[in-house]
């Protein structure tokens, strides 16, 4: 029997079109509706095979030159300092976001203890900073056997590192970060044009009673524990896809 949520809510959830509150409501529904749960995993399987089939067709270099040549001369680049201006604008946006995040978090009513919010704030700040040019990774590699040993001697624990390229979430690097007064591992993954930072540290130093999901200024955070480690995935990716990602990591 088809569930009435199947037609609209399920695809909207799957495509990240629901806000966080409604996403969480729908996740509650998923727990009690095997039909929707099964259909969701079918959709996810389909998306994974589309993602891993390498269907995106990039323009050949020859086309780029052809178009450049065909454009009238005035279309050629002028000495407009666009990239620098863009970087500057970008930094301004990042700074404004950071201020908004900090102010926003300060003004939030008691959605949990101070400490939780501090950690979540720190994570969002780290995530934003990591997106600034040159901050994304200390070690750039899609090979988990390069990224994992890189952390040796830099941390007092060994973070689990797996590549999920086949599922459409390629690992692209790792770096050291600092969250909750300790060094943590940050693993960087990509989903199309979205970056995902996964912060990892030992479970024993996690704050008590962390929420599972939080949304701060358009960034989604998902927290979980697994095999003695504590994880937080941060991204502007929609919650449904971020959840799919974290479930793959938990396997």
């Amino acid at each position: 029997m088809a569930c009435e949520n199947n037609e609209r809510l399920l695809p909207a959830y799957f495509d990240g079109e629901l806000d966080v509150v409604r996403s969480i409501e729908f996740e509650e529904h998923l727990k009690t509706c095997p039909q929707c749960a099964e259909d969701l995993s079918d959709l996810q399987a389909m998306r994974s095979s589309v993602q891993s089939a390498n269907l995106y067709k990039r323009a050949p270099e020859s086309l780029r030159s052809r178009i450049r040549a065909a454009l009238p001369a005035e279309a050629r680049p002028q000495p407009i300092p666009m990239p620098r201006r863009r970087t500057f604008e970008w930094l301004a946006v990042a700074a404004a976001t950071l201020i908004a995040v900090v102010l926003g978090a300060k003004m939030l009513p008691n959605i949990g203890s101070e400490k939780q919010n501090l950690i979540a704030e720190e994570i969002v700040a780290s995530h934003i900073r990591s997106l600034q040019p040159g901050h994304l990774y200390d070690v750039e590699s899609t090979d988990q056997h390069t990224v994992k040993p890189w952390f040796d001697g830099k941390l007092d624990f060994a973070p689990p590192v797996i590549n999920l390229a086949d599922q459409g979430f390629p690992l692209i690097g790792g770096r050291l970060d600092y969250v909750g007064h300790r060094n943590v591992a940050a693993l960087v993954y990509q989903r199309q044009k979205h970056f995902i930072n996964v912060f990892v540290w030992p479970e024993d130093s996690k704050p008590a009673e962390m929420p599972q999901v939080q949304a701060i200024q358009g960034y989604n955070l998902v927290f979980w524990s697994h095999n003695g480690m504590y994880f937080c995935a941060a991204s502007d990716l929609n919650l449904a896809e971020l959840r799919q990602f974290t479930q793959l990591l938990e396997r």
Partner: protein
Amino acid sequence: MEEKRGSVQAGAFEQVVLPHLDAAYNLARWLVRNTHDAEDVVQEAYLRAFKFFGGYEGGDARAWVLKIVRNTSYTFLEKNRPADLSEEFDEKVHTGTAEQLGAEAALVQTADTRMVREALNELPVNFREVLVLRELEGMSYKEIAEMIGKPIGTVMSGLARGRTQLRDRLLQMRPEVRSNVPRDLPGDLPNKEEQRGLRK
């Protein structure tokens, strides 16, 4: 904003519009289903975009370019392959049975690169385009709706039917689900292979 006016001038064209060439080519390639034609369509779309660049008022440059690419692609199809636009998918023939649906998750996981490519390539153009914009370009329902000039409900039903038909095509290509089939690594296939998915 004199600054912005300035950037709307020709000099900015290359810096604003050219970075979206991959997205433009990808969309054209999936709409006209032929690499050579896609290049011609994109070149023409870019010349048009240049002509209309004065009318670009900032905002999402990718969406702006893709809209022009889409229009150019449709014009190309109308002129050269009108049958592609009227293609109807026979849902009676292609709809999977209940038992098949159970095997679906396993099936789409073992579907290889070539099968997925062919299956998408064979979908009717209106479903193919919303799937490409959603799954490959990562656009939201609203962005897609604006691009194709249809309500969000049409985008949603197009995606739903496109996904069902994609699944059914995959089911047809491999009626027996085999397990432990090694999946092709992305990028493993040579470019020539793409030709196989093309219509004659």
